[in-house]
């Protein structure tokens, strides 16, 4: 929806938002006008001198490092006479600086407001302090620089050089990146701080999207006229592009949501309001065009919600075609529909609707206007605004507000924040390898307070949604597109990151069971039971469900995974749905409530190898040996069935526990369990069985028992392989010890008898579950 108003007599060159509803525009008729969108009033702020022809305008940033400043009162205005001016809100010129020869074509403040960059017709790029003192000349080239943009951390700049784009770091020693981007002169660029993507538009009538390494992500088909303006929405989800009589709204992946053909001439400059709902454009025929986003759509189960007007939503229940209309006092900024609740953030309030009742929302006021992200979990939801991260319950109570040093909330998006019923995960921006984990109830860091650190930069994180909080898992995709799974609460143990997939570009957890789906290379993959890696690594490949992903074409993105349905957004913007068999969800439900018989029944019914593999993993994780035995037998893992049988025959609780741990490859834990129970021989035997000779000898020597056992086994091993003893410690101990197999055998018998006796005593006192 677009509304235009005409007020300037000449071409309008630039626009800029000062508050959510006020816009300043500058024109070649030397006037600066202020537009108030609430009252629809237009007033002249100031009439500039006759010789100032404004070109570009940029307001001083409002938030600096999370703190709100006393409202930004100045803006930079560049003009054709080679000067830039710092103007106050009232239009008074505070300072004029002679900056370039020829016109100053662009100026931009960096994100913390400490520096201003200007680019001129003379091909120079200069950095100025906040007060307008020259700091340095960053670049010099032979052709005019039409547009310039700051990188997300304000440590790099992007500028145009004819048909090429250049990224130049501020540090003089680092190398700059330069690539040919368009077939015509590039007129406008923009760089988003949230998604780190670059947008460019040029005289070849195309607009393109790049990543920050200069790799092309999208290139539009040629338009009829040059692209005169491009602008990212602050949240990086959409961008706007302007051309002659053209205004287009596009997704960050490039496909277009909407096209408008207003009669405005060329749109020379575009600016989004801070909340990303409104757009102002400076038009060639003296008009200023205002646009706002409508027809946004949310779907969840049987509900379909459309934002029909700025303040009106329509809720449609697909099952009975019932239609409800929701009216709001102010503009809707963000909304989210999931887990049976609709959360709407307007300019001043937050409204929570239950899908059962659309009449009486729960309303509370927001501290700061612009909510940039809403995430929902079953029990609560999370709001991100300029000031912080807040967790609210669906009753509207503030649950917690986690914080970490150096937190910048303005750049968080759904890929870098994840919420579950008990945990919040946030990826750090300054060090992208670090993921902060918080308890959702208290807002305090989990465990010892040390964040999770991965060896690579993390691109996307997701917490699983179901199950007990001690089993909470986090899945993450790193820069190499490898998918890792790790446990959130790791109880003093060294964290173990398990790689469960590679070439994964996008993933999502199921909302009702801990099932993960992702697109792996050109396969759509569902991890029925990702936690299998913690139990039995070999099992994981058997628990996968794969499907050809060619129907999703290239670069798809998984939007959600609800029930048995996965929703995927293709690169061309179309939504594609895909079904997943319902059995794994049921299996999760049965095993979650320890209904093993029913689980077995289900597997027998479904006759699916992957399902059996899942059951095997789940049973082992819950130490349900009988079920595990059946399940392993069903997937023909004879060795494992044997081992489970062996575990079942073990005399004591401790050693069977130790062997279950051993089964999952947790040798240290198994040893610790046995030693704690005083079963030293068994601990030594574990290491002997694993050919872990040094540790076995160490234990034997330390506890002064079974040294001869270790030596005897070692000798036998060496003999079998026809090798000589080379280990110095074994040589040393074998000198003083005589190996007598009979004696050793009897000693072992004694140990086993002792253990049996002990177990018999203890099983009288407490019936051991694993010995049923």
């Amino acid at each position, binding site marked *: 929806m677009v509304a235009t108003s005409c007020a300037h007599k000449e071409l309008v060159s630039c626009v800029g938002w000062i508050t959510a509803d006020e816009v300043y525009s500058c024109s070649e008729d030397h006037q600066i006008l202020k537009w108030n969108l609430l009252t629809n009033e237009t007033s002249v702020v100031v009439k500039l001198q006759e010789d100032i022809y404004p070109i570009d305008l940029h307001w001083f940033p409002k938030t600096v490092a999370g703190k709100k400043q006393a409202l930004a009162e100045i803006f930079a205005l560049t003009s054709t006479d080679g000067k830039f001016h710092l103007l106050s809100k009232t239009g008074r010129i505070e300072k004029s600086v002679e900056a370039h020869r020829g016109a100053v074509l662009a100026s931009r403040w960096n994100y913390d407001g400490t520096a201003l960059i200007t680019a001129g017709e003379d091909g120079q790029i200069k950095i100025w302090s906040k007060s307008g003192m020259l700091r340095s000349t960053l670049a010099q080239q032979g052709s005019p620089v039409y547009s310039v943009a700051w990188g997300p951390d304000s440590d790099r700049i992007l500028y145009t050089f004819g048909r090429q784009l250049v990224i130049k770091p501020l540090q003089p020693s680092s190398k700059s990146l330069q690539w040919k981007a368009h077939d015509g002169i590039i007129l406008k660029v923009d760089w988003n701080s949230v998604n780190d993507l670059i947008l460019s538009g040029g005289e070849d009538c195309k607009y393109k999207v790049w990543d920050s390494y200069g790799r092309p992500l999208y290139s539009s088909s040629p338009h*009829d006229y040059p692209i005169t303006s491009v602008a990212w929405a602050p949240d990086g989800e959409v961008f706007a592009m302007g051309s002659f009589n*053209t205004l287009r709204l596009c997704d960050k992946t490039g496909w277009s949501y909407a096209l408008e053909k207003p009669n405005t001439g060329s749109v020379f400059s575009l600016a989004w309001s801070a909340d990303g709902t409104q757009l102002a454009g400076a038009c060639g025929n003296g008009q200023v065009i205002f646009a706002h986003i409508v027809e946004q759509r949310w779907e969840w189960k049987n509900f379909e919600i459309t934002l029909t007007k700025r303040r009106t939503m329509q809720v449609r229940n697909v099952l009975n075609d019932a239609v409800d209309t929701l009216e709001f006092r102010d503009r809707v900024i963000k909304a989210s529909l999931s887990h049976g609740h609709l959360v709407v953030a307007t300019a001043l309030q937050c409204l929570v609707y239950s899908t059962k009742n659309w009449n009486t929302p729960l309303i509370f006021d927001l501290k700061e206007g612009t909510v940039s992200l809403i995430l929902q979990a079953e029990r609560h939801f999370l709001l991100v605004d300029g000031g912080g991260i807040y967790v609210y319950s669906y009753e509207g109570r503030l649950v917690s507000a986690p914080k970490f040093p150096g937190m910048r909330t303005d750049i968080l998006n759904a890929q870098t924040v994840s919420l579950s019923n008990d945990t919040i995960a946030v990826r750090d921006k300054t060090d992208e390898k670090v993921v902060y984990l918080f308890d959702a109830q208290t807002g305090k860091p989990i465990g010892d307070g040390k964040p999770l650190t991965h060896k690579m930069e993390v691109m996307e994180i997701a917490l699983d949604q179901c199950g007990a909080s001690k089993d909470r898992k986090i899945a993450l995709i790193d820069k190499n597109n490898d998918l890792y799974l790790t446990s959130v609460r790791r109880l003093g143990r060294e964290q173990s990151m398990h790689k469960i997939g590679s070439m994964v570009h996008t993933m999502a957890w199921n909302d009702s069971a801990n099932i993960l789906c992702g697109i792996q290379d050109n396969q759509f993959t569902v991890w029925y039971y990702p936690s299998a890696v913690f139990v039995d690594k070999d099992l994981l490949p058997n628990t996968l469900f794969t499907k050809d992903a060619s129907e999703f074409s290239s670069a798809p993105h998984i939007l959600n995974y609800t029930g048995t349905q996965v929703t995927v957004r293709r690169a061309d913007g*179309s939504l*594609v*749905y*895909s079904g997943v068999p319902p059995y794994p969800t049921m299996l999760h439900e049965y095993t979650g409530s320890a209904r093993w018989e029913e689980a077995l029944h289900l597997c027998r019914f479904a006759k699916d190898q992957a399902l059996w593999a899942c059951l095997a993993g789940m049973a082992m994780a819950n130490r349900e040996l009988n079920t595990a035995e059946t399940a392993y037998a069903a997937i023909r893992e004879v060795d494992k069935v044997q081992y489970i049988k062996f575990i079942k025959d073990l005399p004591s609780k401790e050693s069977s526990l130790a062997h279950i741990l051993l089964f999952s490859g947790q040798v240290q834990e198994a040893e610790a369990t046995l030693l704690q129970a005083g079963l030293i021989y068994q601990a030594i035997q574990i290491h002997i069985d694993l050919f872990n000779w040094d540790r076995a000898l160490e234990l034997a020597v330390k506890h002064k028992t079974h040294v001869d056992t270790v030596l005897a086994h070692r000798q036998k091993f060496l003999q079998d392989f026809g090798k000589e003893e080379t280990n110095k410690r074994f040589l040393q101990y074998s000198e003083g010890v005589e190996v007598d197999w009979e004696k050793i055998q009897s000693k072992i018998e004694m140990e086993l008898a002792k253990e049996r006796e002990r177990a018999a005593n203890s099983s009288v006192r407490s019936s051991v579950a694993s010995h049923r």
Partner: protein
Amino acid sequence: MAKDPLADAGLHFDELNKLRVLDPDVSQKTTELKEECKDFVDKIGQFQKIVGGLIEMVDELAKEAEKEKMKAIGARNLLKSVAKQREAQQQQLQALIAEKRMQLERYRIEYEALSKVEAEQNEFIDQFMLQK
């Protein structure tokens, strides 16, 4: 008739026997002339007025003609540009159509995917019923 001495002296009597310096005939003729002159002046004035009005009217007509002429030229030019305008309009509409077509294509793909899901689910239900 004997000459009137008075007439010689330039004196005359009129009908009312009043003494006059001018011959009554002449006097009468003079008066007539005066009247006639006055008439003439009046007529000339009237004529002038009429001619003035006429000129004005002609001028106005000229102006009007000029205006119409300009109008005609403008209309002719406009007519010429309509073709161009149409083209531009067509271009705009074409762009909008392309946009809608893309949206339609997206909806088509979405519909196909949903139909596939429906078929899968139906198949599943059938299988389920069969096995039960």
